[in-house]
């Protein structure tokens, strides 16, 4: 009897020791709502704007209906420009190593098919030069990018629909192309719906993107190795309608889900860590989140529909 009691005590002790560790493992990361991006008149009502974080200067750029707004690290608008520019429809923005603002826009000329332009602006948003993409192989003559990323002297132009990424130098001279669809080795039926919903590049130069109809998030390394994660489902960590994807300095991957209205966090090996937020119109909740970016202070910026603006969360790690 005494022996059994001792055994029971040992089991209880083990459980007490293991339980907190297990809990910590289940939730090593937590997201807390901070605020929505705002001006001095209140929160700004965006729906699915483009967003870019200038990691060096800790500023956030938002492109919405042809106006570019700049926010400081506390989420307040400090500058805006663009409404008087004759640039066509601005579809994306990035910054080069000198702090110049690069704008990707669609120009309306004889045909929309190739009617895009990249404009280099100074920090005030004043156009200074046009970056023309040069030496593009003829088979990509109809290439129409809708995402643009600048990284370490290279300009990455991505077409989400055709899943092609063109890499140029900072002056637009063609360097290489990633024709992503064949790289994924999909079945014929899967190819029908294959289209990227988001595109970003992590600190190691890996491409990150999602394909919602396949319920997957992909990574392609600079040496063209493809890996992916994701399964359909509504339980934590699974995908309903996966959308934006980004990574932080640790290599953790953040994915937003339009249907689930949550931000899901995975480690660099695609292990699910936790998810935060859910559907709702109140502050801190999300409506059809579309894109996500993370700044160097672990602030997570989430764009969404319903004129709910950009919600900012602070991520903390145990």
């Amino acid at each position, binding site marked *: 009897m005494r022996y059994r009691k001792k055994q029971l005590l040992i089991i209880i002790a083990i459980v007490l020791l293991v339980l907190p560790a297990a809990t910590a493992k289940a939730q090593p990361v937590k997201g807390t709502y901070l605020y929505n991006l705002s001006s001095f008149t209140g929160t700004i009502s965006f*729906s699915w704007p483009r967003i870019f974080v200038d990691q060096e200067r800790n500023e956030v750029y938002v492109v919405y209906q042809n106006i570019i707004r700049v926010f400081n690290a506390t989420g307040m608008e400090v500058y805006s420009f663009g409404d008087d520019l004759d640039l066509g429809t601005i579809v994306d923005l990035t910054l080069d190593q000198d702090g110049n603002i690069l704008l990707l826009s669609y120009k309306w000329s004889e045909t929309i098919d190739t009617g895009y332009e990249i404009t280099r602006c100074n920090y005030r948003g004043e156009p200074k030069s046009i970056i023309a993409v040069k030496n593009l192989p003829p088979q990509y003559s109809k290439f129409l990018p809708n995402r643009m990323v600048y990284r370490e002297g290279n300009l990455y132009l991505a077409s989400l629909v055709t899943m092609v990424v063109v890499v140029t130098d900072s002056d637009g001279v063609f360097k290489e192309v990633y024709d992503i669809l064949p790289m994924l080795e999909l079945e014929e039926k899967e190819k029908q719906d294959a*289209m990227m919903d988001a595109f970003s590049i992590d600190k190691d130069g890996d491409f990150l993107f999602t394909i*919602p109809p396949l319920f997957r998030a992909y990574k392609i390394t600079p040496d063209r190795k493809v890996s992916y994660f994701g399964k359909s489902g509504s339980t934590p960590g699974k995908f309903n309608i996966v959308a934006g994807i980004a990574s932080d300095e640790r290599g953790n991957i953040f994915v937003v889900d339009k249907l*689930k209205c949550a931000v899901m966090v995975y480690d660099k090996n695609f292990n699910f860590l936790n998810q935060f937020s859910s559907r709702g119109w109140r502050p801190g909740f999300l409506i059809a989140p579309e894109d996500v970016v993370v700044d160097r202070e672990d602030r997570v910026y989430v764009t969404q*529909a319903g004129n709910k603006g950009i919600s900012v969360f602070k991520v903390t790690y145990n």
Partner: protein
Amino acid sequence: MKALKLSLVILAAALLTIGLSGMAYAFHSGGVADCDGCHSMHAPKTGGTALLQGTDYSSTCLNCHANAATGSYHVMTYPFPGAGAAPIDYNVGGDFAWLQKTYTYAGHPSSVTENGQDHGHNVIAADFGLTVDSNYTQSPGGTFPSAKLACNSCHDPHGKYRRIGGDTTYTIATSGAPIIASGSSNTSPVPTATQAVGSYRLLAGLNYSQDAGTTAISYPGVPLASAPGYGIAEAAAIATRVAYGVGTVSGSTTWGHWCGACHATFHSTGNYVHPIDQAMSSTIINNYGSYVSSGIMTGTAASSYLSLVPFATNSGDYAVLKPLAKQGAPTAGPNSGDQVMCLSCHRGHASGFQSMLRWGMNYEFITIADGSGNAEYPGTDNGAAASAAQGRTSAEWQAAYYGRPASAFGASGYQRVLCNKCHAQD
């Protein structure tokens, strides 16, 4: 023994789950899509129905079908373009973002406002800012309640309507054989006797009810069509033809009768309205084949098809329709028996024009000419008269015509409205 049985059941369930998780499908594939794309089994919306997550039915659809990127399976430019910028999704049905483009311009005696909601079907999608039509409480020409209008008013979200048994000889039903693929494309497989393909764009047919059976819509059948490929855009730079057909077998119908389920009095049968579902006369056929642009009647019938003025081929045989569905090469105009339909003049979703027409009717000219005599759209940005520009920039006009440059309507401009493609009165 009991424990063993239970273990086997659990093991079988686990294997089944693992097995299914590994299977990947294209999303709709002509029928019901992956449940997790619309329903949330474990985190549904509070107070919602059917475990759906969007505020309403259309919001759920637009989670995937709205996007800033053009093409593929998108039907709405989102976010909505700002003032002077144009919706840029050239899907054949039309871009729902036009519903948000309201134009105000100088008129006589007072300014004119053209409300965005006049540009198409006002599907309600609260998450995306699309609200109920405030002009009509019921469908024009019919009795369908505007407050119920959603994507699933026309499209069966579960895609039960199917074509079984072949391209030439087939039956239309909601069961009887499994749907193996989309039936919308000219590359869709030919279903065998024990197979089916989905209806065109998952459109609804006989005995359909939206909202889980609470709102019946008396479609006389499914309409027939074949598109050149899967998710196509009607790019102006590339000749694009969806081959619309004429349904004759049980469970299928003509396009006019299908639209007539909600717009009954607009149908031509017994009404003094434009003919619908009727064979085009030889005069109309000849006009269509010869018409190039205003005043120019030197065209060739064999290459006269214009996607801004489509028609229905007088056939329900997919072996006939599929080869007609093309993108990239000009195709022929109508033959004897081919029919005019609602979609000859209107888009299905929305357009850049009132009444979701395929071209503007508020000014006699589509294009004008600049100081050098070159064709241009009459925009607010190029000094055109207010009555011609109608509050639009030239870029918005161009997008409304699916990216066609003004010169596509003739190098010297002054193209008149496209009623003339058939009637040649210009």
